[in-house]
Protein backbone atom coordinates (compact mmCIF):
# COMPACT_ATOMS: atom_id res chain seq x y z
CA UNK A 1 0.00 0.00 0.00
CA UNK A 2 2.83 2.34 0.91
CA UNK A 3 4.61 1.48 -2.35
CA UNK A 4 1.47 2.21 -4.32
CA UNK A 5 1.07 5.56 -2.63
CA UNK A 6 4.66 6.45 -3.42
CA UNK A 7 4.23 5.57 -7.09
CA UNK A 8 1.10 7.68 -7.36
CA UNK A 9 2.72 10.64 -5.61
CA UNK A 10 5.93 10.50 -7.65
CA UNK A 11 4.14 10.23 -10.99
CA UNK A 12 1.76 13.04 -10.06
CA UNK A 13 4.62 15.28 -9.00
CA UNK A 14 6.51 14.48 -12.21
CA UNK A 15 3.51 15.33 -14.34
CA UNK A 16 2.82 18.51 -12.39
CA UNK A 17 6.41 19.76 -12.55
CA UNK A 18 6.57 18.96 -16.25
CA UNK A 19 3.28 20.77 -16.87
CA UNK A 20 4.49 23.80 -14.93
CA UNK A 21 7.76 23.90 -16.88
CA UNK A 22 5.92 23.65 -20.17
CA UNK A 23 3.41 26.31 -19.19
CA UNK A 24 6.28 28.64 -18.32
CA UNK A 25 8.07 27.86 -21.59
CA UNK A 26 4.89 28.48 -23.52
CA UNK A 27 4.29 31.82 -21.86
CA UNK A 28 7.85 32.92 -22.61
CA UNK A 29 7.90 31.75 -26.21
CA UNK A 30 4.39 32.27 -27.54
CA UNK A 31 4.94 35.95 -28.30
CA UNK A 32 8.31 35.56 -30.08
CA UNK A 33 6.87 32.63 -32.05
CA UNK A 34 3.93 34.71 -33.24
CA UNK A 35 6.28 37.59 -34.05
CA UNK A 36 8.68 35.36 -35.98
CA UNK A 37 5.78 33.85 -37.93
CA UNK A 38 4.51 37.30 -38.82
CA UNK A 39 7.97 38.55 -39.79
CA UNK A 40 8.36 35.53 -42.01
CA UNK A 41 5.08 36.27 -43.76
CA UNK A 42 5.96 39.95 -44.20
CA UNK A 43 9.31 38.97 -45.71
CA UNK A 44 7.64 36.48 -48.04
CA UNK A 45 5.06 39.08 -49.10
CA UNK A 46 7.83 41.52 -49.85
CA UNK A 47 9.59 39.00 -52.07
CA UNK A 48 6.56 37.96 -54.09
CA UNK A 49 4.97 41.39 -54.52
CA UNK A 50 6.14 44.27 -56.72
CA UNK A 51 7.46 47.35 -54.88
CA UNK A 52 4.65 49.12 -53.05
CA UNK A 53 4.18 51.85 -50.45
CA UNK A 54 1.29 50.45 -48.43
CA UNK A 55 1.28 47.60 -45.92
CA UNK A 56 0.00 44.54 -47.79
CA UNK A 57 -0.25 42.48 -44.62
CA UNK A 58 -2.88 44.74 -43.10
CA UNK A 59 -4.65 45.54 -46.36
CA UNK A 60 -6.29 42.22 -46.93
CA UNK A 61 -9.50 41.04 -48.52
CA UNK A 62 -11.22 37.74 -48.13
CA UNK A 63 -13.05 36.12 -51.01
CA UNK A 64 -15.06 32.94 -51.16
CA UNK A 65 -16.77 31.15 -48.33
CA UNK A 66 -16.01 28.38 -45.88
CA UNK A 67 -13.10 26.08 -46.62
CA UNK A 68 -12.63 27.52 -50.11
CA UNK A 69 -12.12 31.06 -48.91
CA UNK A 70 -8.83 32.81 -49.52
CA UNK A 71 -7.20 35.95 -48.17
CA UNK A 72 -5.61 38.35 -50.63
CA UNK A 73 -3.05 40.95 -49.61
CA UNK A 74 -3.23 43.96 -51.88
CA UNK A 75 -0.16 46.02 -52.80
CA UNK A 76 -0.58 49.64 -53.88
CA UNK A 77 1.80 52.35 -54.94
CA UNK A 78 0.50 55.90 -54.66
CA UNK A 79 -2.97 54.44 -54.18
CA UNK A 80 -2.71 52.55 -57.49
CA UNK A 81 -3.19 48.76 -57.53
CA UNK A 82 0.15 47.14 -58.43
CA UNK A 83 -0.44 43.54 -57.41
CA UNK A 84 -1.82 41.12 -54.88
CA UNK A 85 -0.57 38.10 -53.01
CA UNK A 86 -2.53 35.17 -51.67
CA UNK A 87 -1.89 32.23 -49.40
CA UNK A 88 -3.31 29.01 -50.73
CA UNK A 89 -2.92 25.40 -49.76
CA UNK A 90 -3.52 21.93 -51.14
CA UNK A 91 -3.04 18.42 -49.85
CA UNK A 92 0.46 17.12 -50.55
CA UNK A 93 1.98 13.71 -49.86
CA UNK A 94 2.07 13.86 -46.08
CA UNK A 95 -0.15 16.82 -45.30
CA UNK A 96 -1.10 20.28 -46.46
CA UNK A 97 1.35 22.38 -48.46
CA UNK A 98 0.92 26.12 -48.04
CA UNK A 99 2.10 28.43 -50.80
CA UNK A 100 2.22 32.19 -51.12
CA UNK A 101 1.83 33.61 -54.62
CA UNK A 102 2.30 37.19 -55.77
CA UNK A 103 0.59 38.41 -58.94
CA UNK A 104 1.24 41.74 -60.63
CA UNK A 105 -1.55 44.05 -61.81
CA UNK A 106 -1.16 42.82 -65.40
CA UNK A 107 -1.87 39.25 -64.30
CA UNK A 108 1.64 37.81 -64.49
CA UNK A 109 3.05 35.89 -61.55
CA UNK A 110 5.88 37.66 -59.77
CA UNK A 111 6.85 34.81 -57.50
CA UNK A 112 5.75 31.64 -55.73
CA UNK A 113 7.12 30.47 -52.41
CA UNK A 114 6.34 27.60 -50.09
CA UNK A 115 5.28 28.96 -46.72
CA UNK A 116 4.92 25.63 -45.01
CA UNK A 117 5.21 22.01 -46.05
CA UNK A 118 5.67 20.27 -42.72
CA UNK A 119 4.99 16.71 -43.75
CA UNK A 120 6.72 16.27 -47.10
CA UNK A 121 9.44 13.64 -47.32
CA UNK A 122 12.86 15.22 -46.75
CA UNK A 123 14.97 14.81 -49.87
CA UNK A 124 11.94 14.16 -52.07
CA UNK A 125 8.71 16.08 -51.63
CA UNK A 126 10.46 18.73 -49.57
CA UNK A 127 12.35 19.65 -52.75
CA UNK A 128 9.34 21.61 -53.99
CA UNK A 129 10.83 24.38 -51.83
CA UNK A 130 13.78 24.66 -54.19
CA UNK A 131 14.10 27.63 -56.51
CA UNK A 132 14.54 25.44 -59.60
CA UNK A 133 11.02 24.09 -59.24
CA UNK A 134 9.36 27.33 -58.14
CA UNK A 135 10.99 29.39 -60.90
CA UNK A 136 8.72 27.64 -63.42
CA UNK A 137 5.77 29.65 -62.13
CA UNK A 138 7.36 33.05 -62.62
CA UNK A 139 5.99 35.18 -65.42
CA UNK A 140 3.03 32.89 -66.09
CA UNK A 141 -0.41 34.34 -66.79
CA UNK A 142 -3.21 34.26 -64.23
CA UNK A 143 -5.93 34.70 -66.85
CA UNK A 144 -5.58 31.22 -68.34
CA UNK A 145 -4.59 28.61 -65.78
CA UNK A 146 -4.47 25.52 -68.00
CA UNK A 147 -0.68 25.50 -67.71
CA UNK A 148 -0.84 25.19 -63.90
CA UNK A 149 -0.69 21.41 -63.75
CA UNK A 150 2.18 18.97 -63.76
CA UNK A 151 3.00 17.53 -67.19
CA UNK A 152 1.53 14.17 -66.25
CA UNK A 153 -1.86 15.90 -65.87
CA UNK A 154 -1.58 17.84 -69.12
CA UNK A 155 -0.04 21.05 -67.77
CA UNK A 156 3.33 22.68 -68.27
CA UNK A 157 4.94 22.30 -64.84
CA UNK A 158 7.82 19.84 -64.56
CA UNK A 159 7.29 17.86 -61.37
CA UNK A 160 10.20 17.28 -58.99
CA UNK A 161 11.61 13.82 -59.74
CA UNK A 162 9.96 11.25 -57.51
CA UNK A 163 7.65 13.81 -55.97
CA UNK A 164 4.72 14.08 -58.37
CA UNK A 165 2.15 14.30 -55.59
CA UNK A 166 3.87 17.19 -53.82
CA UNK A 167 4.44 19.01 -57.12
CA UNK A 168 0.83 18.46 -58.09
CA UNK A 169 -0.31 19.95 -54.78
CA UNK A 170 1.75 23.09 -55.34
CA UNK A 171 0.37 23.49 -58.86
CA UNK A 172 -3.17 22.96 -57.59
CA UNK A 173 -2.81 25.49 -54.78
CA UNK A 174 -1.44 28.05 -57.24
CA UNK A 175 -4.19 27.34 -59.78
CA UNK A 176 -7.03 27.69 -57.27
CA UNK A 177 -5.65 30.99 -56.05
CA UNK A 178 -5.17 32.32 -59.56
CA UNK A 179 -8.76 31.51 -60.47
CA UNK A 180 -9.89 33.42 -57.40
CA UNK A 181 -7.55 36.27 -58.32
CA UNK A 182 -8.97 36.54 -61.83
CA UNK A 183 -12.54 36.44 -60.53
CA UNK A 184 -12.03 39.25 -58.02
CA UNK A 185 -9.47 41.40 -59.80
CA UNK A 186 -11.87 44.34 -60.25
CA UNK A 187 -12.75 44.43 -56.56
CA UNK A 188 -9.08 44.57 -55.60
CA UNK A 189 -8.37 47.28 -58.14
CA UNK A 190 -11.04 49.49 -56.56
CA UNK A 191 -9.42 52.31 -54.57
CA UNK A 192 -8.78 51.70 -50.93
CA UNK A 193 -11.45 54.07 -49.66
CA UNK A 194 -14.28 52.16 -51.30
CA UNK A 195 -13.58 49.60 -48.61
CA UNK A 196 -14.70 46.05 -49.16
CA UNK A 197 -16.83 44.75 -46.29
CA UNK A 198 -14.71 41.62 -46.03
CA UNK A 199 -11.77 43.78 -45.09
CA UNK A 200 -13.17 44.22 -41.60
CA UNK A 201 -13.99 40.59 -41.02
CA UNK A 202 -10.39 39.59 -41.63
CA UNK A 203 -9.18 41.17 -38.43
Amino acid sequence: MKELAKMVVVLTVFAAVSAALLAWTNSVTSEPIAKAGKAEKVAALKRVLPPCDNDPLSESMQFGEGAGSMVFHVARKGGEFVGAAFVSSAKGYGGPIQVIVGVKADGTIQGVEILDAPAETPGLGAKVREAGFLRQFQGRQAADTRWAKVRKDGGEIDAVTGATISSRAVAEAVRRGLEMFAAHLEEMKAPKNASHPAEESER
Partner: protein
Amino acid sequence: MKFLRQLARGLWEEIPVFRVVLGMCPTLAVSTSLENGLGMGLAVVFVLTCSNVAISALRNIIPPKVRIPCYIIVAATFVTIVDLFMNAFAHELHRALGIFIPLIVVNCIILGRAEAFAGKNSVALSLADGIGMGLGFTIALSVVSVIREALGNGSVTVWHGIGWRIPGAPQTLLMILAPGGFIVLGCLLAAMNHIQARIALRAGRGYPPPAELDCRHCCLCRPSPQNPAA
Protein backbone atom coordinates in the same frame (compact mmCIF):
# COMPACT_ATOMS: atom_id res chain seq x y z
CA MET B 1 39.44 10.07 -16.75
CA LYS B 2 36.39 7.94 -16.17
CA PHE B 3 34.35 10.80 -17.62
CA LEU B 4 36.35 10.82 -20.86
CA ARG B 5 36.31 7.05 -21.15
CA GLN B 6 32.53 7.03 -20.83
CA LEU B 7 32.30 9.78 -23.43
CA ALA B 8 34.49 7.87 -25.87
CA ARG B 9 32.45 4.70 -25.48
CA GLY B 10 29.55 6.32 -27.29
CA LEU B 11 31.78 7.27 -30.19
CA TRP B 12 33.11 3.85 -31.13
CA GLU B 13 32.67 0.91 -28.78
CA GLU B 14 28.95 1.47 -28.28
CA ILE B 15 28.18 3.85 -31.13
CA PRO B 16 24.38 3.97 -31.09
CA VAL B 17 23.29 3.15 -34.62
CA PHE B 18 26.03 0.72 -35.64
CA ARG B 19 26.76 -1.13 -32.41
CA VAL B 20 23.81 -0.75 -30.08
CA VAL B 21 21.40 -0.65 -33.04
CA LEU B 22 19.07 1.81 -31.36
CA GLY B 23 17.39 4.79 -32.94
CA MET B 24 16.71 3.09 -36.26
CA CYS B 25 13.49 4.97 -37.00
CA PRO B 26 14.99 8.47 -37.25
CA THR B 27 18.08 7.05 -38.91
CA LEU B 28 16.06 5.66 -41.78
CA ALA B 29 13.61 8.56 -42.00
CA VAL B 30 15.96 11.50 -41.77
CA SER B 31 19.20 10.37 -43.41
CA THR B 32 18.32 11.61 -46.89
CA SER B 33 20.77 14.51 -46.76
CA LEU B 34 23.75 15.40 -44.60
CA GLU B 35 22.03 18.61 -43.54
CA ASN B 36 19.10 16.66 -42.10
CA GLY B 37 21.39 14.11 -40.46
CA LEU B 38 23.49 16.76 -38.73
CA GLY B 39 20.45 18.71 -37.58
CA MET B 40 18.73 15.68 -36.11
CA GLY B 41 21.97 14.49 -34.52
CA LEU B 42 22.67 17.79 -32.77
CA ALA B 43 19.10 18.04 -31.48
CA VAL B 44 19.51 14.53 -30.04
CA VAL B 45 22.81 15.48 -28.36
CA PHE B 46 21.02 18.25 -26.52
CA VAL B 47 17.95 16.30 -25.47
CA LEU B 48 19.90 13.17 -24.54
CA THR B 49 22.35 15.12 -22.38
CA CYS B 50 19.55 16.95 -20.55
CA SER B 51 17.40 13.88 -20.03
CA ASN B 52 20.38 11.78 -18.88
CA VAL B 53 21.36 14.38 -16.29
CA ALA B 54 17.80 14.85 -15.05
CA ILE B 55 17.09 11.12 -14.81
CA SER B 56 20.39 10.42 -13.11
CA ALA B 57 19.74 13.17 -10.56
CA LEU B 58 16.29 11.77 -9.85
CA ARG B 59 17.24 8.09 -9.93
CA ASN B 60 16.84 7.58 -6.21
CA ILE B 61 13.39 9.16 -6.11
CA ILE B 62 11.87 7.31 -9.05
CA PRO B 63 10.16 4.06 -7.92
CA PRO B 64 11.38 1.20 -10.13
CA LYS B 65 7.87 0.11 -11.12
CA VAL B 66 6.96 3.43 -12.72
CA ARG B 67 10.39 4.38 -14.02
CA ILE B 68 9.47 4.12 -17.71
CA PRO B 69 6.59 6.65 -17.55
CA CYS B 70 8.86 8.96 -15.55
CA TYR B 71 11.60 8.70 -18.19
CA ILE B 72 9.11 9.41 -20.95
CA ILE B 73 7.78 12.47 -19.14
CA VAL B 74 11.31 13.82 -18.70
CA ALA B 75 12.23 13.23 -22.36
CA ALA B 76 8.96 14.64 -23.70
CA THR B 77 9.27 17.74 -21.53
CA PHE B 78 12.77 18.50 -22.77
CA VAL B 79 11.79 17.88 -26.37
CA THR B 80 8.85 20.27 -26.14
CA ILE B 81 10.99 22.92 -24.45
CA VAL B 82 13.62 22.63 -27.18
CA ASP B 83 10.92 22.75 -29.84
CA LEU B 84 9.31 25.91 -28.47
CA PHE B 85 12.53 27.76 -27.73
CA MET B 86 13.97 26.94 -31.11
CA ASN B 87 10.79 28.10 -32.81
CA ALA B 88 10.88 31.37 -30.88
CA PHE B 89 14.54 32.32 -31.00
CA ALA B 90 16.03 30.34 -33.90
CA HIS B 91 13.16 30.39 -36.31
CA GLU B 92 15.23 29.61 -39.41
CA LEU B 93 16.78 26.57 -37.77
CA HIS B 94 13.38 25.46 -36.57
CA ARG B 95 12.02 25.62 -40.09
CA ALA B 96 14.76 23.29 -41.26
CA LEU B 97 14.49 20.86 -38.33
CA GLY B 98 10.83 21.30 -37.43
CA ILE B 99 9.69 17.82 -38.36
CA PHE B 100 12.53 16.01 -36.61
CA ILE B 101 12.26 17.49 -33.15
CA PRO B 102 9.01 15.80 -32.12
CA LEU B 103 10.52 12.57 -33.46
CA ILE B 104 13.15 12.65 -30.73
CA VAL B 105 10.58 11.65 -28.09
CA VAL B 106 10.16 8.28 -29.74
CA ASN B 107 13.89 7.88 -30.32
CA CYS B 108 14.83 4.68 -28.52
CA ILE B 109 18.26 6.05 -27.67
CA ILE B 110 16.79 8.44 -25.12
CA LEU B 111 14.84 5.74 -23.32
CA GLY B 112 17.60 3.19 -23.88
CA ARG B 113 20.27 5.31 -22.22
CA ALA B 114 17.93 6.29 -19.39
CA GLU B 115 17.19 2.64 -18.70
CA ALA B 116 20.66 1.20 -19.30
CA PHE B 117 22.82 3.98 -17.91
CA ALA B 118 21.42 7.15 -16.37
CA GLY B 119 19.08 5.26 -14.04
CA LYS B 120 22.05 3.52 -12.41
CA ASN B 121 25.00 5.91 -12.60
CA SER B 122 26.16 9.23 -11.21
CA VAL B 123 25.21 12.56 -12.73
CA ALA B 124 28.71 13.27 -14.05
CA LEU B 125 29.00 9.92 -15.81
CA SER B 126 25.49 10.25 -17.20
CA LEU B 127 26.44 13.64 -18.60
CA ALA B 128 29.44 12.07 -20.34
CA ASP B 129 27.27 9.22 -21.58
CA GLY B 130 24.70 11.66 -22.97
CA ILE B 131 27.27 13.72 -24.84
CA GLY B 132 29.15 10.68 -26.13
CA MET B 133 26.09 8.75 -27.25
CA GLY B 134 24.61 11.88 -28.81
CA LEU B 135 27.77 12.61 -30.77
CA GLY B 136 28.05 8.95 -31.75
CA PHE B 137 24.50 9.09 -33.05
CA THR B 138 25.33 12.27 -34.99
CA ILE B 139 28.39 10.64 -36.55
CA ALA B 140 26.51 7.49 -37.51
CA LEU B 141 23.63 9.47 -38.95
CA SER B 142 26.02 11.68 -40.91
CA VAL B 143 27.80 8.67 -42.42
CA VAL B 144 24.52 7.13 -43.58
CA SER B 145 23.30 10.53 -44.83
CA VAL B 146 26.43 11.32 -46.83
CA ILE B 147 26.28 7.98 -48.63
CA ARG B 148 22.58 8.25 -49.39
CA GLU B 149 22.73 11.86 -50.50
CA ALA B 150 25.80 11.35 -52.68
CA LEU B 151 24.38 8.29 -54.41
CA GLY B 152 20.78 9.42 -54.55
CA ASN B 153 21.07 13.11 -55.26
CA GLY B 154 24.64 13.56 -56.47
CA SER B 155 25.36 16.15 -53.82
CA VAL B 156 26.56 16.68 -50.27
CA THR B 157 24.81 19.53 -48.45
CA VAL B 158 26.26 20.68 -45.16
CA TRP B 159 23.85 23.47 -44.35
CA HIS B 160 21.24 25.47 -46.25
CA GLY B 161 22.59 25.14 -49.74
CA ILE B 162 26.21 25.16 -48.60
CA GLY B 163 27.77 22.04 -49.97
CA TRP B 164 29.09 20.37 -53.06
CA ARG B 165 27.58 18.85 -56.15
CA ILE B 166 29.35 15.82 -57.48
CA PRO B 167 29.65 16.46 -61.21
CA GLY B 168 28.36 13.67 -63.39
CA ALA B 169 27.24 11.51 -60.49
CA PRO B 170 24.29 9.28 -61.32
CA GLN B 171 21.21 10.08 -59.27
CA THR B 172 19.72 6.86 -58.04
CA LEU B 173 16.34 7.71 -56.64
CA LEU B 174 16.22 4.39 -54.79
CA MET B 175 18.90 5.58 -52.38
CA ILE B 176 16.80 8.52 -51.23
CA LEU B 177 13.73 6.32 -50.77
CA ALA B 178 13.26 4.06 -47.75
CA PRO B 179 14.81 0.91 -49.33
CA GLY B 180 18.03 2.85 -49.92
CA GLY B 181 18.17 3.59 -46.21
CA PHE B 182 17.88 -0.10 -45.34
CA ILE B 183 20.51 -1.09 -47.92
CA VAL B 184 23.07 1.48 -46.74
CA LEU B 185 22.41 0.74 -43.09
CA GLY B 186 22.71 -3.01 -43.63
CA CYS B 187 26.03 -2.67 -45.44
CA LEU B 188 27.40 -0.34 -42.77
CA LEU B 189 26.30 -2.65 -39.93
CA ALA B 190 27.99 -5.58 -41.62
CA ALA B 191 31.16 -3.58 -42.19
CA MET B 192 31.19 -2.38 -38.60
CA ASN B 193 30.79 -5.91 -37.24
CA HIS B 194 33.50 -7.17 -39.53
CA ILE B 195 35.98 -4.47 -38.51
CA GLN B 196 35.34 -4.82 -34.82
CA ALA B 197 35.53 -8.61 -34.93
CA ARG B 198 38.83 -8.36 -36.81
CA ILE B 199 40.29 -5.93 -34.29
CA ALA B 200 39.20 -8.10 -31.38
CA LEU B 201 40.54 -11.33 -32.88
CA ARG B 202 43.85 -9.75 -33.81
CA ALA B 203 44.26 -8.50 -30.26
CA GLY B 204 43.55 -12.03 -29.05
CA ARG B 205 40.31 -11.00 -27.39
CA GLY B 206 36.95 -12.48 -28.03
CA TYR B 207 34.51 -10.38 -29.93
CA PRO B 208 31.97 -9.23 -27.36
CA PRO B 209 28.39 -9.61 -28.47
CA PRO B 210 26.91 -6.23 -29.30
CA ALA B 211 25.29 -4.82 -26.18
CA GLU B 212 21.52 -5.19 -26.06
CA LEU B 213 21.42 -6.91 -29.41
CA ASP B 214 19.67 -10.19 -29.94
CA CYS B 215 22.42 -12.36 -31.40
CA ARG B 216 20.76 -15.73 -31.49
CA HIS B 217 20.97 -15.76 -35.25
CA CYS B 218 24.57 -14.71 -35.56
CA CYS B 219 27.57 -16.97 -35.20
CA LEU B 220 30.12 -14.19 -35.37
CA CYS B 221 31.08 -14.36 -31.73
CA ARG B 222 30.05 -17.88 -30.75
CA PRO B 223 32.80 -19.78 -28.92
CA SER B 224 35.12 -21.32 -31.49
CA PRO B 225 38.81 -22.27 -31.65
CA GLN B 226 39.62 -18.82 -33.03
CA ASN B 227 37.42 -17.02 -30.57
CA PRO B 228 37.59 -18.79 -27.23
CA ALA B 229 36.69 -15.84 -25.07
CA ALA B 230 33.14 -15.40 -26.28
